[in-house]
């Protein structure tokens, strides 16, 4: 985590230093005032008095300069650090594999980017501002007291360790609680976010009251943990006060005895008392700092856990396939999402020639999506091998692989951006002409024209589009990249039959990619060169439409079902 200070090391070092200089300057003030009294007033020297007063102003101005510099450096460091941390976190999350993303969850990452990063920033800022000052003052007072009278000052040597134990205790008590505060915040974020995206469903089921209750419950939980953490933290100040003042009472007795025995003067007792009082004031400030830093540490740990996540996939270096008659080849491939779960795909083998169109059908949850997600390595097979252009997909570097294979998912994704911005994800270098070309193939040209061209703004999630329009834009995005393999995962389910058919024909004509089409309707795959039939993760049929009709019972059922409704 320290590496994010890079570029701010000097500032991080200078900020407390300037702060310290300011504190030191302040110490000069009593000396100057003493001077005014001892020489100016005593000698009735008006000029001297005025000069010294001017010196006081001068000290104040220089001190102000130091303070401002220190604040600037610490603001710069704290915000800069937090910005770098956010960048790193953002990069890490964006680079997570599908499997890892399934695990970490979106809302948890959101709180880390928001609240946790904020806490870290506050912690650093406070730390830099008070880092040298408070310990310096406490230590200085301790030394001074020792110089005045070691015989009494040992009291301080008792008080300070006791305080340390208390501080440590409070930190230990608070740390896990701050953590659970953040965890509860994760949940609150999740609920809020769910209700934003599910507003229609919640309203349709008149579930508002129930949702409010749920949210209220979660917030109560959050409030409870916040309170517990807060109450423990609130102990720090009073306990500090208690211990230091207890020390002072002890001082009255020890000091009193020593004065009585003539080992100490009254003036020295006053001095030691004053040092104790100074220490108290500083410690109270320090206590707040300690709590802020403790919170920051709890948050920093949550962030560093994510930063520490190692990539669970290694990519090869190949940028080209090898000579092979097959574009795609699955060899005894199985996929299990988690230990103990059933196979989502088991022992599937098939091969696809370049430029062929292959349809994949099977009932809901039979593993169609899972099977094809192995090709661009969204997931890796538990067993078996997937070959693309004659080479195991693991041999390719990520760039090459994902440029070769584009997937249009089952659920269309549209970003809050212009149409152009949305399409350019497919290929950042595409020209407008290429974009229109892709839109034409995807049957989305008129949609975009109706919306006002490539610069028309689309709402987040494409909420100002109809379902079919979203799907066609998603398809266009994939086409913009001119992939050699295009996977359409049931991505025309919201299209009417005519558009769907026109789409498939346009892809055939307009591109030369190998096409894998997952479809729920046998009409969607009927014209394919080959059809793979999946059932419960197993490949139960492989062949053309006509072959399967005679050889594969499952396929026949699916086909008849399409007509069976008739």
């Amino acid at each position, binding site marked *: 985590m320290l590496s994010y200070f890079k570029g701010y090391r000097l500032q991080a070092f200078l900020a407390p230093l300037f702060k310290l200089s300011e504190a030191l300057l302040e110490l000069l003030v009593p000396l100057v005032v003493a001077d005014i009294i001892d020489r100016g007033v005593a000698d009735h020297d008006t000029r001297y008095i005025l000069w010294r007063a001017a010196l006081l102003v001068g000290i104040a101005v220089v001190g102000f300069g130091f303070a401002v510099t220190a604040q600037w450096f610490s603001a710069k460091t704290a915000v800069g650090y937090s910005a770098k941390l956010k960048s790193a976190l953002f990069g890490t999350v964006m680079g997570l594999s599908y499997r890892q993303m399934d695990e970490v*969850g979106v809302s948890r990452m959101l709180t880390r980017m928001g609240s946790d990063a904020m806490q870290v920033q506050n912690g650093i800022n406070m730390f830099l501002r008070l880092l040298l000052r408070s310990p310096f003052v406490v230590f200085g007072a301790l030394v001074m007291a020792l110089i005045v009278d070691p015989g009494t000052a040992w009291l301080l040597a008792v008080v300070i360790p006791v305080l340390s134990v208390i501080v440590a205790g409070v930190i230990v008590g608070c740390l896990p609680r701050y953590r659970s505060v953040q965890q509860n915040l994760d949940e609150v974020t999740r609920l809020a976010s769910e209700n934003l995206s599910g507003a229609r469903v919640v309203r349709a089921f008149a579930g508002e009251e129930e949702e409010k209750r749920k949210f*209220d419950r979660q917030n109560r939980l959050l409030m409870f943990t916040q309170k517990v953490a807060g109450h423990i933290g609130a102990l720090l100040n009073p306990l500090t006060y208690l211990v230091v003042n207890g020390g002072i009472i002890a001082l009255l007795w020890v000091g009193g005895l020593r004065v009585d025995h003539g080992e100490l003067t009254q003036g020295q007792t006053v001095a030691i008392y004053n040092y104790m009082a100074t220490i108290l004031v500083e410690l109270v400030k320090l206590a707040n700092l300690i709590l802020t830093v403790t919170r920051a540490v709890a948050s920093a740990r949550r962030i560093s856990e994510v930063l520490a996540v190692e990539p669970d996939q290694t990519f090869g270096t190949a940028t080209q396939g090898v000579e092979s008659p097959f574009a795609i080849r699955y060899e005894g491939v199985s996929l299990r999402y988690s230990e103990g779960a059933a196979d989502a795909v088991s022992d599937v083998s098939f091969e696809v020639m370049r430029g062929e169109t292959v349809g994949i059908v099977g009932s809901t949850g039979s593993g169609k999506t899972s099977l094809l997600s192995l090709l661009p390595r969204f997931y890796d097979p538990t067993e078996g091998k997937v070959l693309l252009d004659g080479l195991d997909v693991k041999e390719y570097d990520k760039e090459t692989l994902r440029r070769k294979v584009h997937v249009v998912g089952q659920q269309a994704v549209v970003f809050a951006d212009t149409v152009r911005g949305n399409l350019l994800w497919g290929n950042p270098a595409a020209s407008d002409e290429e974009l229109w070309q892709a839109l034409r193939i995807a049957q989305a040209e008129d949609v975009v024209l109706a919306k006002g061209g490539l610069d028309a703004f689309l709402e987040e999630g494409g909420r100002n589009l109809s379902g079919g329009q979203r799907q066609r834009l998603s398809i266009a995005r994939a086409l913009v990249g001119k992939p050699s393999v295009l996977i359409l995962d049931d991505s025309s389910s919201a299209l009417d039959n005519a558009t769907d058919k026109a789409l498939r024909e346009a892809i055939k004509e307009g591109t030369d990619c190998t096409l894998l089409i997952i479809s729920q309707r046998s009409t969607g795959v009927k014209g394919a060169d080959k059809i793979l039939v999946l059932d419960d993760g197993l490949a139960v049929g492989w062949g053309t439409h006509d072959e399967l009709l005679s050889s594969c019972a499952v396929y026949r059922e699916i086909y008849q079902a399409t007509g069976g409704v008739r």
Partner: protein
Amino acid sequence: MKGTLRFLGRYIAKVKLPLALGVLTTLVSVGLTLYTPVLFGRAIDEMVGVGQVDFGVIATLSWQTAVMIAVNVLCQWVSGVCFNNLTFRITKDMRVDMMAKLMRLPLSYLDTHRQGETLGRITSDVETVADGLLMGFSQLVSGVATILATLVFMFVINWLIALAVVVLTPLSLFVARFIARRIHSGFARQAETRAKQTGYVNEMFTHQKTVGAYLGEARAAKEFEEINGEWEKVATKAVFYSSLTNPSTRLVNAIVYAAVAALGALSVTGTLSLAEGLTVGGMSIMLSYANQYTKPFNEISGVITELQNAFVCCDRVRELLDAAEETDEPNATRLVSPRGDIDVKDVSFAYDPHRPLIEHLDLRVKAGERVAIVGPTGCGKTTLINLLMRFYDVDKGEIDVDGKDIRTLTRPSLRYHYGMVLQETWIRHATVADNIAIGKPDATREEIEQAAKEVYADSFIRRLPQGYDTVIEDDGSLSVGQKQLLCIARVMLIKPPMLILDEATSSIDTRTEIKIQKAFGTLMQGKTSFVVAHRLQTVMDADVILVMKDGHVVETGTHDALMAQRGFYFTLFNSGLN
């Protein structure tokens, strides 16, 4: 500013008791903190010299201080606890209010605002308010109390000097105010860029998989860097300016201090005749009080600037809470057990006034009829459903249920009687059972399982690791069709009197679909229902088929009649067969 305070005041008013107790204990604690040193001073006064220490007096004073310290410690903690309770209660109330608000916001608001930004208001902004309040309460109250108490002490000792100091204090407050005002806009910009960042991050994280599939990490990183850089610039400034208050007031105080020292010294020497008979001792007391008195001012001014940040975020909270709601008519009635006659009379509607969509749509549905809505993509089918459910209100014309304009009905009661399956699946982070029971939270396990069986989801649910109790994480870990089955099961569970299915089975394989159609058939027996479908085969037996094109109804009739017409429907239907 005034509005913000009034807004906060509403929340604070709900927690008067802890507030009163917190203020009271703070006052006691400040008084004791200031008074304890006086007793210590007295004790030290007893230590005159060798053999002259009066341990009797010291013992009494020790006892007294010990008691005072104990009380003080207790008060400090209690005030801390009170202010904690207060703050976290207030922020909880705010969040809950915001959630309730979300439920009342029109969908047009939700459809056009970035989710992440709204989310940021509920999370980060409220958090900043909490931080500000916590600091404000604890330091503002104790600061003001300290100032007042010191003032009293000073007036007791020398009212003239006290007066002089009081006259000078507005200077530092003035400086603080000057800076605070400037900072406000800085914080506002910071909050804005932060919201932008949250919006972007939320979207990217949500679609992380898609971005990854398109190798978009680099582009995302670049876009993020832009926003982040902007935020860094703005936030550095805001943090820096806000931290200026303290040094600035300290500077002012130091100058005042120097002036007091000079004037005092000159008075003592007699060069000036401001305060007759001022001694050196008197001057040093005055100086030390001047010092002690200005310190809390310093702290308060710091708090005031930090509070600006809280106020800015508070305004963002208020903005959301003040957004226009979808309110029911004042005399709206509840819809009770409707028969299900639905009359759409000359309805026009457009999302964007410049792009007319639905125009002069008429439709009469008798109770119990099964209506199919078909038409090419983007023709306005979902929009019509948005209108029926009152997710959006018609621009012209009216929609009646049982002869009552739906605008005279309360929205929840209208929606309650419709069961709806949307085009988009929405699964929440919860167990499978809870996901099904969303429309009927008190459903028994048997009912839930029964509903799942009716839509043929039972078998896959049973195969999940914990069956019905399997938690579905963040919308993942199920196939899309399986999610859709769960959405359908929700409707099966509540058995609503009217039904809307917007491509409810689009991601479900045909074999299962047929079975579900049968289940729907039973469910819809005698109930009014609207079914949107692209697979026309699934709606052939509807009582009325409504053929839409570009927001207009172009044909209506039964399947056979429409086929016989050889019109648009005929073309649509045939295009799906080969």
